[in-house]
């Protein structure tokens, strides 16, 4: 059994940061390349003492950062000006200043998380959780209060006696040989190790399952219900509050809807003539509106000029002319009553014309009447 063990390297223990720095400098001087230093905390200046090349991790961060920046610009442009353009605050769809914070966040997030992951998987070889130094006394010491130097047997200058005399020259204590564990010898680093992937999957399953169970079953909290469920009664829903069980309630008696003042003069045209006055001013816009509505709804029977010679060609009895003395002497309120109630064959026009439009039509009718019976003063 003992003979089959293969040497991994030699370790030495030091008591102070100065000693380990000195030893590392000496090891570099002699020309060892495959050696490592283990300390309980980061030592300033160690990378120089070990003559380490600058870390490549910076390039990973740069590439990830730049590509995340590009990706952020592209997706922001695509989402907000092509796929789902929404006007926000009157700004253009592609408004660069608004994107900058998002670009910044995406860049920083991707670069930092990606760099950490790259460090774990490529530099620390993460799925591999075994190393010859694990479980040794050496590792116990350097992870509490000692400083250790380790030289690998793979080093070109490795030779057992030379190593021992080197450790002696730098006053190392506890110089020990470390051997490979059998299963580690032929290990090849794979990021997508099946065992590790299964572990990740199981971990994800347990975490999400436990979360779901705790929130949903144990605490009766629906995760992420957001706006789906609100504390309000929806239409057609059964009510638990009212004894009749109706979720939709009738308005209180006498309720008047906003903007729908009820007509008080139904069947009382003379009272309407007395009480109602035209509330809207005569302007170009009002007359235009009146003309439009008159031409649409009134002119089929009353004719464009109000003469009563209609386009209906006798399918209905022709209405009397609007230019008669009777109609010309009517008050606005009286005409309003006709529009509201209808007269003879004419039905009510309340559904076709809203309040404003009725008064506008009345203004327009007045204008028509005046055009046929102009006074001398109108010509001037």
């Amino acid at each position, binding site marked *: 059994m003992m003979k089959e063990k293969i040497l991994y390297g030699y370790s030495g223990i030091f008591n102070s940061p*100065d000693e380990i720095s000195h030893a590392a*400098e000496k090891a570099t001087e002699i020309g060892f390349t495959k050696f490592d230093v283990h300390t309980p905390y980061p*030592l300033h*200046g160690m*990378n120089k003492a070990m003559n380490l090349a*600058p870390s490549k991790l910076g390039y990973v961060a740069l590439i990830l950062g730049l590509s995340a920046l590009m990706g952020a610009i592209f997706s922001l442009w695509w989402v907000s000006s092509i796929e789902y353009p929404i006007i926000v605050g009157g*700004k253009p769809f592609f408004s660069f*200043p608004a994107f900058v*914070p998002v670009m910044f966040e995406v860049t920083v997030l991707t670069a930092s998380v990606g760099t950490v992951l790259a460090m774990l998987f490529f530099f620390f070889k993460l799925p591999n959780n075994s190393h010859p130094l694990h479980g040794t006394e050496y590792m116990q010491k350097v992870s509490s209060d000692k400083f250790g130097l380790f030289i690998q047997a793979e080093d070109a200058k490795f030779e057992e006696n030379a190593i021992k005399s080197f450790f002696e020259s730098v006053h190392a204590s506890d110089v020990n040989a470390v051997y490979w564990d059998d299963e580690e010898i032929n290990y090849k680093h794979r990021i997508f190790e099946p065992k590790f992937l299964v572990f990740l999957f199981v971990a994800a399953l347990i975490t999400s399952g436990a979360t779901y169970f705790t929130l949903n079953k144990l605490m009766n909290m629906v995760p992420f219900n957001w706006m789906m469920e609100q504390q309000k009664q929806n239409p057609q829903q059964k009510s638990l509050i009212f004894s009749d069980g109706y979720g939709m309630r009738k308005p209180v008696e006498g309720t008047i809807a906003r903007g729908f003042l009820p007509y008080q003069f139904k069947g009382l045209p003379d009272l309407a003539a007395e009480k109602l006055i035209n509330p809207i001013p005569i302007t170009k816009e009002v007359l235009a509106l009146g003309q439009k509505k008159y031409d649409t709804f009134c002119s089929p029977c009353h004719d464009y000029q109000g003469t009563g010679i209609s386009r209906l060609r006798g399918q209905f009895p022709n209405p009397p002319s609007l230019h008669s003395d009777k109609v010309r002497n009517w008050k606005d309120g009286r005409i309003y009553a006709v529009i509201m109630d209808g007269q003879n064959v004419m039905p009510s026009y309340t559904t076709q014309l809203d309040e404003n439009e009725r008064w506008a039509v009345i203004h327009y009718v007045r204008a028509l009447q005046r055009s046929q019976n102009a006074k001398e003063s109108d010509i001037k």
Partner: protein
Amino acid sequence: MSSISKIEYQKKELPSRLQSIGLLLTVLGLVIVLAGYLINPDRMAFNNIIGLTFIISIAVGALFFVAIEYLSGAVWSTPFRRIIEIVSSFVIIVPLFVIPLLLNVHSVFHWTHPEAVNADKILSAKAPYLNVNFFIIRVIAFIAIWMLFQYLITKNSKIQDSSKDQTLTSRNIKLSAIFVPFFALTISFTGIDWLMSLEPHWFSTIFGIYYFSGTVLAALATVTFIAVKLNENGFLVKGLIADHYYSLGALLFAFINFWAYIAFSQFLLIWYANLPEETFWFLQRWEGSWVLWTIGLMIVHFIVPYFGLLSQPSKMDPKKLKFFSLWILAAHYYDLYFLVMPNYSKSGVALSWYEIGFPVLTVGLMIILFINKSKKENLVPIGDPKLKRGIDFRL
């Protein structure tokens, strides 16, 4: 660790050639400034504001650095601290630049005209703060505060050179703790008084910190240039290496980002809210040839130095550090020009011999003052208990 057994510092005289260069620049600058004031006092007064805020940035920003070093207990910057202290002593130039401005205050500040204030609701509402008397009181009080702390802190540090008294360090820590809040207030109100009140109808709540970010950057750039230049030529203590340079470069890089962050925040908030009383300030700088100057600001003040100092080796390279510290110093002047000059020339960028006067004068005075101080003092705080650890500093 490879520690240095003793501090090796040999005091050397700076070359006399530098003295004559400083003198020449000062005289040249003085001639241009005086000629400018005779020919076009309005324009020169606006330039004077740029020159004034520029030297405040360098001197007071440097004092802030000294205070921060004491408060944070930083060791890497201790070998450079005497240089920072000398730079902070440039604060005596400030009154020289203030006096001509106080004589010409009516030609730069709209709010100093009583008839304009009375006719204007906004200005009369701001009058309790923005009036000439209170303004002068503030200016004098701020200069007094800066000079007082500059004197006290550097005096203790100087005495320490010979006495090696460690209690002086703790006394300076206390002084720094008192100074830092004063610095925050004085530098914010300096920015508001001298720069923002040029356009008294405009306001930006972030403006104080905007000026602060440029202040620290300018001070740091000046210190970096002088420190690298002197160390290369062996005027400083032995043992200062790339690790020290890297720290200077990293701080420069950090504050370039900080400036961009603040400048963009100011723009973004105003752009988003889109209120006419705020946006007009940016629109003014987007008109005529000012648009080029504004775009140039982003490139000069952020993009170029950002990419220049992004990588680790570039922060350790003395050549690049010297180049970019000068670049950033110029960029700060460019930034101040962007803040001030659109109030003088609304139609477009105005560049002529007037604009050279104050930078030349400032640089000349700084060189003369530095040489003068370096004759009397060591260039390294040799009595500081942190110095040895500072020299041994490794990344």
